[in-house]
């Protein structure tokens, strides 16, 4: 009996900061996608047996390269969607090109609200991650719980920072009892954030709301840890810092300050044991992952894993690799039992956010880098 000819693969693109020297979020997202692909292909693939295949392009966190990558992805036959990386500014700039080429763009990490809330109809952007307005809300609520009604804010001078600023302003409208004493903008590449921290502290801030990635975040942590105890304000951080090996960058300093970070998922307190078991089985085969500590930037891997499964369902539902049909099918997928949670209807025509504000929680770093949920 002759072997059946190999079926043409269905392509998923991954556009991320592969060349970024400190980022681990791209690795996490890649592993999450590949773990899901492995399971899907093992189960017979999509569209009646066609395997899924991942094609990776590096944008180095530079928006211009991301746009070029989207143009190149558009030329690949049977490409059904592109999954973006950590950097919101890249995806923010990709949005127009994504709609021009009719490419489905998934955010598995990028949090800027306007990646999905982009005003395009039909909207080709979907997200299985948090968004800045939710993160800011969670972070400010956490500050309030810590007794800090007045906070100082440190934002990067990027689209991500501006997205967060907008979220803060929105939050303050609904929470007039809380206040932001100052907003300090820093540049990516700044060698010190201490002056901005001091400016915030001097403005009367009781806590610092930090929007940063691992490099700038680690600089601030080390600088604050160097201050006297009385000058060390609690730092409530957006999750960009978890996109790299943060504790390696901060060293002991992380344990010397009050540092918390927003998250959407933790492998340490997952109650979906069956799903987790299946995940570890597959990921263990692929990446020798057997426990939470083995997973870098865990939210990225979890988001990507669930997102890929949802995409596969949509492809099968669409019955084609045509992206217009798949985009419509994504809005029709129902009842996916995922790793993070069960998704009765991950996306609808009106809502392209698979998670919701209630999925967010605050965490802290253990000295070994593990991110643990803070029980409040």
């Amino acid at each position: 009996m002759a072997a059946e000819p190999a079926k043409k693969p269905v392509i998923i693109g991954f556009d991320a900061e592969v060349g970024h020297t400190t980022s681990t979020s791209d690795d996490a997202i890649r592993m999450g996608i590949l773990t899901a692909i492995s399971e899907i292909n093992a189960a017979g693939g999509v569209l009646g047996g066609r395997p899924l295949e991942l094609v990776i392009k590096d944008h180095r966190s530079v928006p211009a390269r991301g746009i070029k990558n989207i143009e190149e992805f558009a030329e690949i036959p049977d490409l059904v969607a592109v999954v973006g990386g950590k950097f919101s500014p890249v995806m923010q700039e990709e949005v127009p090109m994504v709609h021009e080429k009719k490419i489905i763009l998934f955010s598995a990490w990028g949090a800027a609200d306007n990646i999905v809330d982009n005003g395009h109809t039909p909207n080709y952007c979907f997200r299985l991650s948090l968004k800045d307005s939710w993160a800011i809300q969670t972070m400010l609520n956490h500050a309030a719980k810590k007794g800090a009604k007045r906070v100082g804010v440190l934002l990067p001078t990027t689209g991500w920072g501006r997205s967060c600023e907008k979220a803060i302003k929105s939050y303050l409208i609904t929470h007039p009892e809380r206040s932001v004493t100052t907003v300090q903008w820093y540049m990516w590449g700044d060698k010190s954030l201490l002056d901005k921290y001091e400016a915030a502290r001097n403005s009367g801030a009781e806590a610092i709301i930090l929007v940063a990635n691992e490099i700038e975040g680690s600089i601030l942590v080390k600088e604050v840890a160097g201050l006297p105890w009385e000058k060390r304000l609690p730092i409530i951080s957006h999750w960009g810092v978890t996109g790299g090996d943060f504790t390696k960058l901060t060293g002991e300093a992380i344990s010397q300050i009050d540092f918390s970070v927003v998250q959407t998922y933790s492998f340490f307190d997952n109650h979906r044991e069956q799903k987790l078991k299946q995940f570890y089985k597959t990921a263990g085969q692929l990446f020798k992952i057997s426990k939470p500590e083995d997973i870098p930037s865990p939210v990225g891997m979890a988001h990507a894993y669930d997102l890929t499964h949802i995409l596969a369902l949509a492809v099968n539902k669409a019955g084609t690799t045509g992206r217009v049909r798949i985009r419509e099918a994504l809005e029709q997928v129902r009842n996916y039992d995922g790793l993070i949670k069960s998704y009765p209807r991950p996306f609808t025509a009106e809502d392209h956010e698979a998670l919701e504000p209630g999925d967010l929680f605050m965490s802290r770093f253990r000295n070994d880098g593990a991110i643990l949920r803070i029980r409040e």
Partner: protein
Amino acid sequence: MPRSIARKISLAALSLTMAVVLTLGLASYLFTRHTLKEQIEEKLSFEAALVSHRLEARLDNINNDMRNMSANLIVVNALIDSAGREMYVEPFLRSYRLPRNIPCLLTLCDFSGKPIISCKGAEKLRQYSDEPLLTQVITNQRPLARLEKKGTESHLLIAYPVFYGATGKAEGFLALELPLIPLVSGCLPDVPGRDGHIFKLSGASGEIWTTAKDRTSILSTTSRFKTQAPLDQLALTLTVGQSTRQAYAPLLTMTAIYLAIGAMVLVLVLGISRAMGKKLTAPLVALTKTANQVTKHSDPTSEITVTSLDEITQLSSSINTMLNRLQESHDSLEQRVTDRTRELQALNEKLAEEVTERSLAEAKTREYAETQAVLLREVNHRVKNNLVAIISMLHQEEDRAREKGMREYQIRVQEVVWRVAGLLTVHRLLSSSEWKPLPLNQLCESVIKETLKGLSASRTMRLSVSPSEIRVDSDQAHSLAMVLNELSTNTLKYALRERDTASIAVSIGQQDNIIELTYQDDGPGFPEPLLRGDFSDSGIGLTLVNGLITRNMQGTITLTNDNGGVARITFPATVPEPAS
């Protein structure tokens, strides 16, 4: 045309002065020109160094600005920022100012050369996506500087890579574009061209800009810029020059003044030299006048009177002495001429007498010669007439003998007629040659032909006589005429007895002083006794022949037969052989 010594002195003085003036002038001109050139070149070199230094400083400042700006976090951040970066990058770029407010375009580009934002905002964005630029700035991650031509203007483009710290790579670049000429002009002196200086800026590909309108005849010095990388790639050089016309203007003025002074000096020298020449040559003029007078009147007794005390006085004294000596020589010569004239007159008289006598003698001689010639002609004429008369009479006798049937007699008479005719022939030849020696071949031919006239028309006798220059005197001619007559008569008688054609061949030769004449016919030959030299039984003819040769000519005759009769006659030559 002779020239006066005064004029020669003037010319010499003028020439010498002119040579000195020209030599000094030329030397001064060359020295001044050399010095002036060195000064100008030093000045130009200083100017070039000054302007180059200013321009280098400005270019290096701009280059440093670009290096610093490209490393500025505002610029780096803008590469990865999306919506909103124009709020801080554009003011940052716009805040950059070039010296003297030179307009420029400062643009931040992404890795593909696509402009992100410029100092002019979004209204003026230029794509910098050419391969060499991207290769240098993005791939090689090194700054670039190059010149670009925009219409007639040259623009300087400096591009610096913008490094993104998170990747450590160039993810974009900052491009500064500015017109080069205003930048260069700003470094020139306050009033370019005030000193007539010409500025030229050149790059690796040739001339970029110049203030020169006319590039011929320019003194110049070039200064190479020592700019930092990447501006050193431009290989900029600045040439500062000055037109030679303007540079050497002072030299021209100096030359004009010098020429004017030189001309005045020459005029002055001419006047002085002419005056001095006249003064110096005045005694000589007086001397010349006296000499002319002596010459004109041939009066060497004249005395030259000169009052000066120099060499001319000595010369005058010498000439006076010379004139005295000349007068003495003249007198002596006159006496000798008179004596000689007298002697010549006596000789002339004697010569005249001798001439008269000789003329008379010559007249007598001529008269005698004429008489002799007349006499000779008369004798010749009479001898010829006599011989003709004898022949005529012999013919009458022959006719009578024929009428009477006296055959034998008739033959004898006829033979006599032939012999006389032979004598007549030789007489005619001698007469016409005035009895001078006759050519022997002509004699033989004439005599034999005369004999052959008696041949009847039905018979033919071929005659050949060898050519010869040998001549014989009149005696030998007479004897030989009779001998040849006898021999040819014999040939007629015997060679044509039984046939109508015969031949005679005569050959002439000479061995030393002996002439040899060989007569040969093709007849029956001579009888035997004759061959032995016995002429006793021969006829009168051969006997006569033998006698004529042996007695009259002191010769010999030998008869032989060789297909006919052969008579070999030898006799001494009396006439010298003609010169060859």
